[in-house]
């Protein structure tokens, strides 16, 4: 892809000291805890925003909070940028390194420290995968609610970095609503504990500020998360519509009627075909748009909710309604949805947008998305969390064709402008990273951005943590 997004110029003084820095860092880490051979650095050169890649100076893989603190304190003292990294599944380039940076990887801190069922919390290290929490507490009848499609791989530290969501956030909220505490290491090495097993903050809500801060305020080494009792039953139901417009209007009416299912996922024709070909989920292929609506609870509750939803769908001319008849079928329906990005990646290169819009604007924004992409001669597949208006247009292109790649970036930017104009935002759950950094002024005034950056300075005065991300490179205030 066209390398149009810039990183900060590497600090020459850091690059020239590479050998010494590596030698020093090695003394702060256990055997094998520092990666610096070019060959071994390759796995860290990018994240899931693969269009951009560059090798870091080195990768530190600490095992304890104390080691994280020592590495940060050293880097702070010597003015060395640090890029925190979980599993590197960021879709916005949030974990992409830069040549003068030390990547601080949390992958070796992956223990579940404590499961406390009485208080319904789990205390985990930051490198633990999202799914492993639910797997650990599952046999006891509990789960961890935020469920990004990448949950098999992504880490809780990365989830906190991006305030990640998932299909079931409509009912249960995103990471910030399910996070009770963290151990955070500041850039100068100071270790602080925010929150715990109790609710709400004493003093300022620093936990809320840190969640979604994309590794710019500190490095999370431990987290306390809320776990919830699993519902008695859950049932995904497929609703097929002739067009996206009818499906979009149905979503808005369901919510307006005061019905909040656990999930309402949307797929357009392109996405249905891609997912069905890959997952054989049994999606209807004759429809123009599909909703996966999941209800949960007791049999009585699911019945009552479904009846109300079906009545609304009928008003919007629903063509097919299919309830899953078994656990296997239900799993298959979700498998198709959760595989959407992977399946798309098999047929083309794609970039995934993440704007959120007010529900009343869904149909309008879908239509504009289609127009923008066809106008540029590109294909687009839409698969997203419709219940909360979080759209994911997947813009398909050929990465070997620089002109087409540039068009895809243009289309993405245009779509995000439409989202902001509709009263929405640039990113609902994937984060800003480098991808949307230079679009921040679409959404925020200079004063808004200046205030956010000023707060950032209170954490990291020398702007060393993940410094090329989130805020436009020009117009950064002095400390």
């Amino acid at each position: 892809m066209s390398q149009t997004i810039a990183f900060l110029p590497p600090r020459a003084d850091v690059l020239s000291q590479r050998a010494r820095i590596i030698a020093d860092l090695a003394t702060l880490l256990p055997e094998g805890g520092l990666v610096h051979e070019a060959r071994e650095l390759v796995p860290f050169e990018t994240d899931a925003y693969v269009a951009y890649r560059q090798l870091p100076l080195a990768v530190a893989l600490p095992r304890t909070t104390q080691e994280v603190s020592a590495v940060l304190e050293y880097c702070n003292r010597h003015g060395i940028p640090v890029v925190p990294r979980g599993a590197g599944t960021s879709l916005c380039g949030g974990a992409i390194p830069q040549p003068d940076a030390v990547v601080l990887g949390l992958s070796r801190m992956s223990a579940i420290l404590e499961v406390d069922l009485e208080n319904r919390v789990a205390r985990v290290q930051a490198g633990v995968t999202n799914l492993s929490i639910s797997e650990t507490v599952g046999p006891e009848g509990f789960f961890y609610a935020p469920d990004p499609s990448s949950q098999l791989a992504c880490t809780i530290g990365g989830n906190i970095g991006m305030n990640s969501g998932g299909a079931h956030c409509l009912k249960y909220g995103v990471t910030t609503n399910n996070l009770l505490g963290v151990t955070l290491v500041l850039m100068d090495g100071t270790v602080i504990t925010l929150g715990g097993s109790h609710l709400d903050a004493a003093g300022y809500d620093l936990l809320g500020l840190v969640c979604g801060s994309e590794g710019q305020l500190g490095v999370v080494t431990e987290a306390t998360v809320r776990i919830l009792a699993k519902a008695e039953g859950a049932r995904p139901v497929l609703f097929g519509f002739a067009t996206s417009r009818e499906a979009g209007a149905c979503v808005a009416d369901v919510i307006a009627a005061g019905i909040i299912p656990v999930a309402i996922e949307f797929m357009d024709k392109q996405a249905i075909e891609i997912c069905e070909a890959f997952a054989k989920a049994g999606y209807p292929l004759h429809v123009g748009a599909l909703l996966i609506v999941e209800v949960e609870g007791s049999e009585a509750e699911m019945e009552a909710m479904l009846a109300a939803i079906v009545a609304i769908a009928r008003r919007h001319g629903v063509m097919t309604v299919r309830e899953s008849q078994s656990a296997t079928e239900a799993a298959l329906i979700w498998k198709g949805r959760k595989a959407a990005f992977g399946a798309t990646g098999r047929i083309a290169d794609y970039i995934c947008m993440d704007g959120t819009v007010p529900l009343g604007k869904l149909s309008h924004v879908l239509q504009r998305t289609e127009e923008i992409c066809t106008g540029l001669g590109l294909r687009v597949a839409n698969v997203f969390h419709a219940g909360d208006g979080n759209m994911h247009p997947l813009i398909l292109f050929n990465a070997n064709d620089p002109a087409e790649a540039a068009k895809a970036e243009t289309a993405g930017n245009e779509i995000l402008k439409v989202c902001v104009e509709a009263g929405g935002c640039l990113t609902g759950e994937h984060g800003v990273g480098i991808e949307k950094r230079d679009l921040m002024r679409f959404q925020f005034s200079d004063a808004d951005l200046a205030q956010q950056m000023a707060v950032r300075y209170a954490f990291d005065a020398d702007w060393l943590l993940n410094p090329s991300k989130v805020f436009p490179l020009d117009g950064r205030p002095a400390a």
Partner: protein
Amino acid sequence: MNEVHHPQSEAEACDLIRQAAEAGTALSLIGGNTRAGLGNRVAADAVLCSTGLAGIVDYEPGEMVMTARAGTPLGAIEAALSANNQMLAFEPVDHRGIMGTQGEPTIGGVFLSNASGPRRLSAGAARDSLLGIRFVNGRGAAIRAGGRVMKNVTGLDLVKLLAGSHGTLGFVTEVTFRVLPRPESEATIVLRGLDDATATKAMAAAMAQPADVSAAAHVPQAVARTLPEASGQAGAVTALRLEGLSASVTVRAASLAARLSDFAPVDTLDAAASAGLWRAIRDVTPLQAHQERPLWRVSVAPATGHRLIADLRHHAEIDALCDWQGGLVWLEMGGAPQADLLRRTVAALGGGHATLMRASEDARAGLSAFEPQPAPIAALSARIKAKLDPAGIFSPGRMAPVLRSGVGTTGRTG
């Protein structure tokens, strides 16, 4: 008497604040001021009040989102929501009873104190409902943070930072928040006569069930007699609320009652009785009678609340009531506030925080109403405060730790 400013527009607020910053005039930021007397004493030269900024700006019931000016009376918000069969998810407390104050709380004041009631346990705190704000920083610049959509990770979440900042970081002019449909029905399972420890076990057992309990509280025998007739009278009350579609509430109530019958005889309160009981718990009516006694609001891990009460009973005369599955403890002290003893005990039991909600002027002098923060967090908070309010003019001292002498240790830092 300090001068009170009532700006009628955000632009006017910007001008007032810019001038105050230049002159170094400290401002006490207030809404309806129904919580006057809370927090530490503010050393301010003038008052900046939000009530001139009133009115609902935008309300889309279909999108479950409302935008209102910060000084809008909470009552007006609740009336508009109620007309559309919607509500604030976090169930704000009407604290006028426990604090003996009058006046009209504002929607801004509710979010600025992150004030949440019983449903906080299942539906999140006030801050979780808050989607976006407009505020004026200490330089007099109008800032927008967040937005009006539920999912939004664009930039730093200043919305959360401002929520619960008690008027020390910015003057909020407008709030945008998520609302929820009012449940079609509710019922409450009541267990009677449990001691505090057993009640905690019962509440944990209920929350481990797939029953979608929306609130869980325990009112010990000593204070239960002031509860509404249908629920109180005969000893301690442990209450578990279920909300939702009528058919589902009935089914869940039956199965939860069956699960909990080993703990104690079980009663089920119908919708009206349930609503009355939870209003009393929300507003802490059992601890309203003795306005002269200090009242604390303590947040600890749910299983810890009853141990806190038991440990303190060895040293002090107390009455208490537990919400949030046992984790929110309203503590009424018989004599002095005993701040050090209380906070030491909370820390020893694994941590949490205690806020002094009510006490005489004398008793309040010289103690920190808010939980003092460990040094590195206090320092970080002071740096953040300086980035929003460089001249230190917003409600100086309100959240700052207090020395024995009664003077804010950090001067104008918070």
